């Protein structure tokens, strides 16, 4: 089942890329993209069901998800400014790509129960999930990354996440889809993208070292004390 989930996810993404390149079936793209995003999320959770994680690991991921979700609510004073992206990134960085994906997608889903579910929910789950995955890969490759480098990566996450979020609106509700209309739609949200990116950078510069220490300590505790 775990392998099947990986193969199917890869297959869906490949088909999606192919369709985007050919551009012949523009009217069906919103439907197909939405189904692919939902399928990837479902497959990821199916993969999670077959993982070896125990209740303690699950509780830690759930706690980080709630923590990331709460971050959205407390920084509501400024649009685009919220620490969720940074918390998801740092969780993925310390715990790994798959855990990062789970923290990101669960944080989006749960916080939207309180803030309002909508067509944006699967996309937020997907966007923050991707942020978690990339950070996890970075964490595995370079565990001792400098604060500055990680902060620059977080800065870029601001654009990555917002561009994924813009996709559902652009693909679904702009016709005809031309390069000009797409660029215009993205340009309208550029101010928020920049604010998000800057706030990610600041959150990382201020909190990175402190939170990495905390998370690594808990990761060690998980590895030492848990009995399967």
């Amino acid at each position, binding site marked *: 089942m775990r392998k099947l989930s990986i193969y199917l996810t890869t297959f869906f993404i490949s088909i999606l890329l192919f369709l985007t390149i050919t551009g012949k079936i523009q*009217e*069906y793209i919103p*439907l197909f993209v*939405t189904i692919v995003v939902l399928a990837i999320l479902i497959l990821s959770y*199916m993969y*999670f*069901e077959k993982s070896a*994680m*125990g*209740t*303690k690991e*699950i*509780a*830690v*991921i*759930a*706690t*980080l998800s*709630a*923590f990331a*979700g*709460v*971050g959205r609510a*407390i920084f509501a*004073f400024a649009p685009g400014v919220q*620490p969720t992206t940074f918390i998801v990134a740092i969780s993925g960085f310390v715990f790994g790509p798959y855990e990062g994906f*789970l923290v990101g997608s*669960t944080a989006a889903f*749960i*916080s939207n*129960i*309180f803030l*309002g*579910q*909508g*067509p944006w*929910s699967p996309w937020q789950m997907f966007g923050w999930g991707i942020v978690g995955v990339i950070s996890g890969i970075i964490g595995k490759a370079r565990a001792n990354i400098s604060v500055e480098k990680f902060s620059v990566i977080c800065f870029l996450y601001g654009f990555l996440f917002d561009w994924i979020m813009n996709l559902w*609106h652009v693909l*679904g*509700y*702009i*016709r*005809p889809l*031309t390069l*000009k*209309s797409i660029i*215009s*739609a993205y340009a*309208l949200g550029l101010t928020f993208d920049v604010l998000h990116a*800057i*706030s990610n950078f*600041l*959150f990382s510069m*201020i*909190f990175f070292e*402190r*939170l990495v220490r*905390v998370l690594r300590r*808990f990761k060690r*505790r998980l590895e030492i004390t848990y009995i399967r």
Partner: protein
Amino acid sequence: MKRNYNIFHVLTLAFTSIILMIIIFSCESPLILTGIFIYFLVVFITCGHSKDIKDGFKYFAPFFAVTLIINMIFVTDGTIMLFKAFGKDFTLESLIVSFMLSFKLLLIMYLFMMMGIMIDSDRAVSFFSSKMPKSTLMMMVTFKLFPSMKNRLVTLKQIYSIRGVDFEGKGMRERIKAFIPILSILLESSLDGAFDIGEAAYVKGFLSGKRTVYDRQTFGRKDYIVTLYAFLLIVVYLFFRISGSLNFDIYIGIDVSKFINLGAITVFIMLLMLAALILILTEENEDGLHRY
């Protein structure tokens, strides 16, 4: 009398919602979209959630503005000119498309709101905990922690305000910096608590044995009826969609037969019948029991 749509199985509601989502995303026919809108109105009004219709508009307003602006300003296709401004033609076609795309966006929002109303969270958790125990456990723990963490954060903020921390600093950096002690404390104490939650969940049978179910949902007659009807709806819709009678491109030309034709009318009536069907199936007997 308020209708209770929670009597349907989670899978029935999920399946019907997916069918409606497919139609909304892939359909351009105003008549069919109106049919779906009527279905949502019936659900909202009959289950006492009329306020959600207004709330949906509130969420929808900013997206509507952006959709309208982009489609009207940046798309120049169309032949019937409404007015000219800033050296640019504003066409009737682009206005109609903007309204239609915005309408689809509103329908998608209503769909998610309707799912929230119709799907009973306890029953959904009960169902999914036997099928996907790990995901359900994770969602349950997060769901439980979210409000308590939020309250704790407010309390911590008050304490640190009294101690002199200024959360209303001038720059973004100052404001973020003020949260250093709060977020660190909250994260550490929450993660400490996570270990206790994990152990408690294990003791209560999560991932350690078979858990009993208090109120197991069964896939009853009403679920078969609605599921089969929804399946029939999508088959009929796809038939007319593939045959080309639902193809609707305003930029090619405004033609009444593109709005109202056999395919659009059939699917429209089927959507109204779906609304009638769920009303009949959720009708209560005199003793308060459901018919099926």
